[in-house]
């Protein structure tokens, strides 16, 4: 298993596409931080996604990772997760190399698990890369300060949040955001076992999240929405806007674990039975 993990990781990190992806993941925070700095005098007018955090962001570079994660988590990190997972088996099938891997006495279940673990590891690494890059650029542009949450803005209690607390929130938030696309990795891997087209597997995975978001917006569905992979995706942001940790973080982790268990198992089950025709 260790050998398979090492081989799969090696294959992925030696891809030009992976290096470009990580380059973009590090470069985008610079753009976001620079844009925030440029609009510093106009904050308070923004009400779009990330608006609350944008309002606060000028106080400290320690908030920039939160702003960046808020902006990048829904689509960009989702696509990255879908890419690593959706390409893992289908990509190798499309080049024909999969049949040669499976001609070796290699357990198919172990191979799928190795690819799942590597896709998860790369997705986590991608999220941490965003967070760390945003922290570096944020501190460079806005400094290393504690933050005062003004009561007048959001109706909460005015409170100072120390740098230590912000760092603690940052680690928790980054881990949560990384984990919040776990379902995408599991779904992507499952689709990757179904098709020899990596683009198809990646597209289907993103489609699942888009459909999930749409269904999540239909309030009359009530509790049915709680099992959707996107339902708890941004509950972490209250740590930065209100200095409170939502109990929904746990619910979000449970939902992601459930999707991981179901679609990870489905992927292994299907791949162990699949005829390789590529």
């Amino acid at each position, binding site marked *: 298993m260790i*050998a*398979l993990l*090492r*081989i799969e990781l*090696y*294959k992925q990190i*030696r*891809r*030009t596409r992976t290096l470009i992806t990580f380059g973009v993941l590090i470069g985008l925070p610079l753009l976001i931080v620079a844009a925030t700095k440029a609009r510093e005098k106009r904050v308070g007018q923004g009400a779009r996604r990330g608006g609350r955090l944008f309002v606060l962001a000028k106080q400290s570079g320690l908030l920039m990772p939160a702003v960046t994660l808020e902006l990048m988590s829904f689509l960009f990190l989702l696509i990255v997760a879908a890419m690593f997972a959706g390409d893992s088996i289908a990509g*190798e099938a499309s*080049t*024909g*190399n999969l*049949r*040669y*891997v*499976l*001609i*070796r*006495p*290699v*357990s*198919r279940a172990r191979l799928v698990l190795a690819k799942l673990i590597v896709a998860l590891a790369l997705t986590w690494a991608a999220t941490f890369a965003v967070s760390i890059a945003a922290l570096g650029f944020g501190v460079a542009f806005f400094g290393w300060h504690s933050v005062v949450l003004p009561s007048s803005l959001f109706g909460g209690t005015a409170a100072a949040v120390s740098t230590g607390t912000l760092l603690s929130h940052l680690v928790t938030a980054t881990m949560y955001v990384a984990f919040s696309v776990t379902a995408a990795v599991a779904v992507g891997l499952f689709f990757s076992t179904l098709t020899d087209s990596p683009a198809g597997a990646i597209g289907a995975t993103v489609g699942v999240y888009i459909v999930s978001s749409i269904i999540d917006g239909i309030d009359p569905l009530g509790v049915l929405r709680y099992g959707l992979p996107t339902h708890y995706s941004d509950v972490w942001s209250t740590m930065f806007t209100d200095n409170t940790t939502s109990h929904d973080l746990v619910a979000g982790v449970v939902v992601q674990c459930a999707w991981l268990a179901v679609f990870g198992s489905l992927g292994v089950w299907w791949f*162990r*039975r699949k*005829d*390789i*025709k590529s």
Partner: protein
Amino acid sequence: MSESPVAVMGLSKRFGSVSAVNDLSFTVEPGQVCGLLGPNGAGKTTTLRVLVGLQRPSAGRVALFGQPVSFGAPQLLRVGALIETAAFVPHLSGMTNLRLWWEAGGRHLDEADTETALAIAGLGDAVDRKVRTYSAGMKQRLGFARLLLGRPELLILDEPTNGLDPGEIREIRQLLRRLADGGATVLVSSHHLSEVEQTCTHAVVMNHGELVTQGLVSEIVGANHGVYLEVDDSDRALQILGSIAGVHGATVEGDGIALQQESGSRSDLVAVLVAAGLRVETITAQQGLEEAFLDLIEGEERR
């Protein structure tokens, strides 16, 4: 269960409503170089894919070295396979591809026969280039290098000379002979019937997923009974041949005699002619494998 390197027993494989292979049985014994022949769609590749554990049989069994084949079966370590075109991770070098493929089986590259494999590949410094820069022929040669890493006892090859130039095809033919001489067993499917005739000792002929015939290539080639021979005295030979049971239609053709032999072997004819004091310069089946193959397939179609 038979200890034969390859045993196919009543194999059937269906894809939905399409039957790719139907009740196919044959064996390949140690040291044989067996050609798997058939027109497109005969089920050759499907049979080979089942043999190397890429697909499950719908019915029947396949075994390698006496052990049933399943996905990831341990006896696959004793097999070198080339299924359709050679394929690799394109963004890695040829050498890295060989290393990763070998290590995926849980073994260190030191245990592999890298020297022989690289000598066969003959890629020189290009082995350190990314595979995406390779020509089709270079990939196919690297594919041969990969399958030889484990000093395989059985080679399963599906159209192995696709993409190779005539010189490379001859090298592969010589390689297969060397491997067979060294005790390896080879099962090879090919459309190049002249190549099979020169390389293979045995053949299995398939059509529409079913077995048409199997046996020695020489027997299959001679199955339509046409014989051509050259002797020092053709007139006397014609008289003698006319008196042999099962021989008919003997006529002078060019410098020799053409005839039909319904029973016995060509060596029987030689024995009779030599016993009569004639010198036999040449004796051969009057057709090649290609004609025999087409006769077999057309005969099967008419049924």
